[in-house]
């Protein structure tokens, strides 16, 4: 995985530079998200990995699928990936692209898991507190997981803030061993 991220980085950097020049980061973000969604499809990955499918066929197929969603530059990018046999990197490219975008625009993508659903007010309150502690704007993505028992679990990239009852019980288990 780490090696794939290394391979994907130059592509992502190039795409981001181009997107910035064209002031189309949002559009590229959509493009990449769609492409990676396509790549995650099992039937597609079978085709991509199949050595019998030659690159021109694959290009035609990809363009056919993405036709509506992807603009001209996106289509060119797909052609390049097929030519370089790096189509499977698309999800990583998308991920790194998002990271570049977030850094550039000064926000962090945060995944928040709670035991019980937030009310709107709570959500706003929590977001402002997180912004203070992380020192950046946050884009929150909230989900509910009953197995936390109580509290919240925050993930911002590698960083994890575990304020859940489950996490505390695990800590306690370790302390009592």
């Amino acid at each position, binding site marked *: *995985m*780490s*090696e794939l*991220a*290394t391979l994907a*980085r130059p592509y992502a950097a190039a795409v981001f530079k181009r997107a910035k020049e064209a002031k189309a980061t949002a559009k590229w973000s959509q493009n990449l998200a769609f492409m990676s969604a396509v790549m995650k499809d099992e039937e597609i990955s079978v085709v991509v990995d199949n050595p019998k499918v030659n690159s021109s066929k694959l290009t035609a197929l990809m363009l056919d699928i993405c036709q509506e969603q992807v603009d001209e530059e996106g289509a060119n990018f797909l052609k390049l990936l097929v030519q370089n046999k790096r189509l499977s990197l698309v999800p990583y490219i998308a991920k790194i692209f998002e990271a570049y975008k977030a850094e550039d625009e000064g926000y962090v993508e945060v995944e928040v898991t709670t035991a019980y659903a937030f009310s709107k007010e709570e959500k706003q309150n929590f977001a402002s507190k997180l912004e203070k502690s992380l020192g950046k704007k946050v884009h929150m993505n909230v989900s509910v997981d009953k197995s936390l028992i109580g*509290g919240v679990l925050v*993930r911002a*990239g*590698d*960083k*994890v*803030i*575990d*304020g859940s009852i489950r*996490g*505390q019980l695990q*800590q*306690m288990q*370790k*302390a*009592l*061993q």
Partner: protein
Amino acid sequence: MQLNPSEISDLIKKRIENFDLSAEAHTEGTVVSVTDGIVRVHGLSEAMQGEMLEFPGNTYGMALNLERDSVGAVVLGPYQHISEGDTVKCTGKILEVPVGEALLGRVVDALGNPIDGKGAIETTETSPIEKIAPGVIARQSVDEPVQIGLKSIDAMIPVGRGQRELIIGDRQTGKTAIAVDAIINQKGTGIKCIYVAIGQKRSSIANVVRKLEEHGAMAHTIIVAASASESAALQFIAPYTGCSMGEFFRDRGEDALIIYDDLTKQAWAYRQVSLLLRRPPGREAYPGDVFYLHSRLLERASRINAAEVEKLTGGKVKGKTGSLTALPIIETQGGDVSAFVPTNVISITDGQIFLESDLFNSGIRPAVNAGLSVSRVGGAAQTKIIKKLGGGTRLDLAQYRELAAFAQFASDLDESTRKQIERGQRVTELMKQNQYSPMSVAQMAVSLFAANEGYLDNVEVNKVLAFEAALQLYMKSEHSGLMDSINATGDFSNEISSGLRAAIETFIKTHSW
């Protein structure tokens, strides 16, 4: 001990009460691959070099390679239960081990866990395994001796407190025997000993422990064992663990002696870890930083001045210097001291005790090669009387070595040459000493005095040791006052000289051997 259930539940209750329930913030990553104890972790962007990483199942690892997208880490201990996709947490701490007085008399593994079945070790303090050695300002020169208890070493290759003296030789030349004798001889001197066994058979380690127990030397000794069956990572960190335990005593104004048995195996373990981490191999396939591996370890053996001790203890200990003396051991292959690791360690240490299998096989034990062995700083620390008397020994042996080749033409040689050869033979014989029988300063002084003053010249070569034994017995029973005074001060005066002379002359007249 009777277990009282209410006590236990009280204890648990108290611990739960004291348990700090704060939301913990940490950095997480996922395991990408596990190969031979080396784990690649994706994420962990904030990991530090040497940081302790937490794996599932109460297992810890150490971050060694920090790369752009991944971290290479070694697992400390078994790694079979770790699988791809597991979460790894940063702990924000460099690997730490317990230190303190409570460890004395115990056998611990490379992480400081007891493995002698004597229960938990009650220590309150921990110390990181990697520390920067004391700087120049904090140091003091070496001027007190560590008595090894072996005539050949204390007389010719003296070791001072805070010195690093390498013991080097082929397998089966008595390297460990010297180390064990040194530990036994520290009984009652206040010097705490740490014996670090790296990559040895468990049976050998058990043997050392048993011998130390038999001679009552375990009470002042800590054994750190990373046996051959343990992972390479543990063998690689064991010396640092032992060093931290020794530094605890040094930093409190006490004296400690640490033995690394042996650093060749540690270098092998480190080579294994490095190659698995895909670091580029260099000479003999060792990575580029094997020199640093040993230099940073041995640099921590030092003598620190009273001001530094006062600073480190927060003013609790005043006017005392602290020292950590290191006796690293290196095993050579076929006497080749110019291999990579031996040359490195020779250049790092303050001298070496060179053991030879030829000498060992011809019955000279300890098999010290007096010509190749040196102590670069020990002379300043040597006890006065031994320094005075031992100087002659070194000279006698050096002259003997030059002339030894002619020994077979004894009849054709002139008087003075013949005398030198005869003296040399007797001194060589006198330097033999049994294992587990270290000698006090006074005992050594008597033997060396007898050789220096020529009292041995009329003793047959094969009777020298018998003569010595009888003389020691006689001195112990008849002149214990003189012996005690030598042991107490270590000075050499005309009074002592004439006392010894009179005693030996009476012994020769009245005793047989």
